[in-house]
């Protein structure tokens, strides 16, 4: 604890770096995965190709990808872009499948009736399909968020900032407190991100809670009726 207090300034600055490295892959990954997922949902031909490519991307070892980035992008070895682009690719690979499922799960009755009452394709996407895919998209985004925050620690292995530095440094010095601080900090960031996402979800998707509550009530009502 004394070590933590003595080094609080450095820990805080590593935390900020960690956050700065985490946010772009999460956001960009999400924003790219949603349209890709929609294409996979909408067109059968693209579905197989897109889902396979994303599945394969995910199997590339992350460290190998980070190390290969300078060659692929023409960046310097210590450029944070290497890490950010790598994690964005991972975020997309992880998110596209969920996004596809999210759009698949939107009721056909609802989209057809939206068409029937006069939604054009564009408006139907923004006002009907996207919001209704929201709950599943949010679930996927939460997984991506947590996984990205944890993957950012890998950056320390190739000399980048972030709480991962406390792992490598603590390991070299054989100093458990420092390693533990890194772990706790990373978990705290992941939790804070998750809470923010859940709150955003409640604000943007107020109907979703009502919907699940109604379904749960209906279920207990039928079980009661059956057991009665």
């Amino acid at each position: 604890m004394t070590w933590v207090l003595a080094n609080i300034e450095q820990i805080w600055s590593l935390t900020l770096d960690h956050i700065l490295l985490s946010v772009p892959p999460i956001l960009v990954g999400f924003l790219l995965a949603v349209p890709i997922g929609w294409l996979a949902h909408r067109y059968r031909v693209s579905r197989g190709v897109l889902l396979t490519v994303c599945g394969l991307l995910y199997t590339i070892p992350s460290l190998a990808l980070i190390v290969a980035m300078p060659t692929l992008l023409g960046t310097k070895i210590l450029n944070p872009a290497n890490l950010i682009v790598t994690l964005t690719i991972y975020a997309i690979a992880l998110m596209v499948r969920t996004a596809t499922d999210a759009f698949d799960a939107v009721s056909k009755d609802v989209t057809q009736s939206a068409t029937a009452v006069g939604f054009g394709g564009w408006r139907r996407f923004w006002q009907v399909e996207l919001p209704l895919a929201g709950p599943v998209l949010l679930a996927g985004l939460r997984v991506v968020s947590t996984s990205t925050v944890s993957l950012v620690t890998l950056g320390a292995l190739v000399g980048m900032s972030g709480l991962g530095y406390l792992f490598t440094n603590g390991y070299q010095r054989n100093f458990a407190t420092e390693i533990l601080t890194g772990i706790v900090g990373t978990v705290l960031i992941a939790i804070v991100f998750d809470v923010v996402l859940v709150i955003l979800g409640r604000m943007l998707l107020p109907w979703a809670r009502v919907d699940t509550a109604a379904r749960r009530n209906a279920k207990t009502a039928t079980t009661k009726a059956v057991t009665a």
Partner: protein
Amino acid sequence: MITFDSVSKRFPDGTLAVDDFNLTLPSRTTTVLVGSSGSGKTTLLRMINRMVDPTAGSIRIDDDDISTLEPVKLRRSIGYVMQNSGLLPHRTVADNIATVPLLSGVKRPAARTQALELMDTVGLDRSLAERYPSQLSGGQQQRVGVARGLAVNPNILLMDEPFGAVDPLVRSELQQELVRIQKDLAKTIVFVTHDIDEAFLLGDQVVLLKTGGKIAQVGTPADILANPADDFVNTFVGADRGRRALRIEQVSGRQVVVDGTGRIAGILNDGTPT
């Protein structure tokens, strides 16, 4: 007036859902398409708002060939109500009813006022306006569906088995409500059902369909009952089982009407309204 002129529909997989269909649906009356599942009712209905385009023939609304009309605009001018209400689960009841006016550029306060008025029309309590569809009963959801269908004050209302999924008691309530609304509003209604009793109750013109959208008989309910065209019609309307054949029996001085199965259908009045 809606006119089908030699209309056929073959789906890409080869199914001939509608084969050379000809029919005139007069304005301001209810035409019911009735037939068993797979007879092409939904396909016929969806051709009217261009959800499905015919592979042959043409459909006119008054004097316009609808293939020349822009589909999205056409759909906004026609009410559509379907079986599982098709309401938007993420919008409140009032917003659902106001969906199409909002799409067409009506201002929010005006659309909302009108939505509340429509709730009165279809017999929904205004206190339900802020609920989500999942918080309503099946019957209430269908009422919202009807209100949404009426929201642009369309001349034409398309209804695809709108009361098919609610229990019999609520169904008959909704049917009566529709009869009342239609008396006031006099829309051109195209109503699809597989229930012949519902067809006879609601239809000014009833169209009995066989597979492939083949017309077995068209006429008023009285026409069809009095002169069934063939055995298919006979069976479909239940005349062959004697279900429709009523007879009069004397019971303690009153004339009681009994149906073909021996069940009491009602009491015969001597013409003086009670």
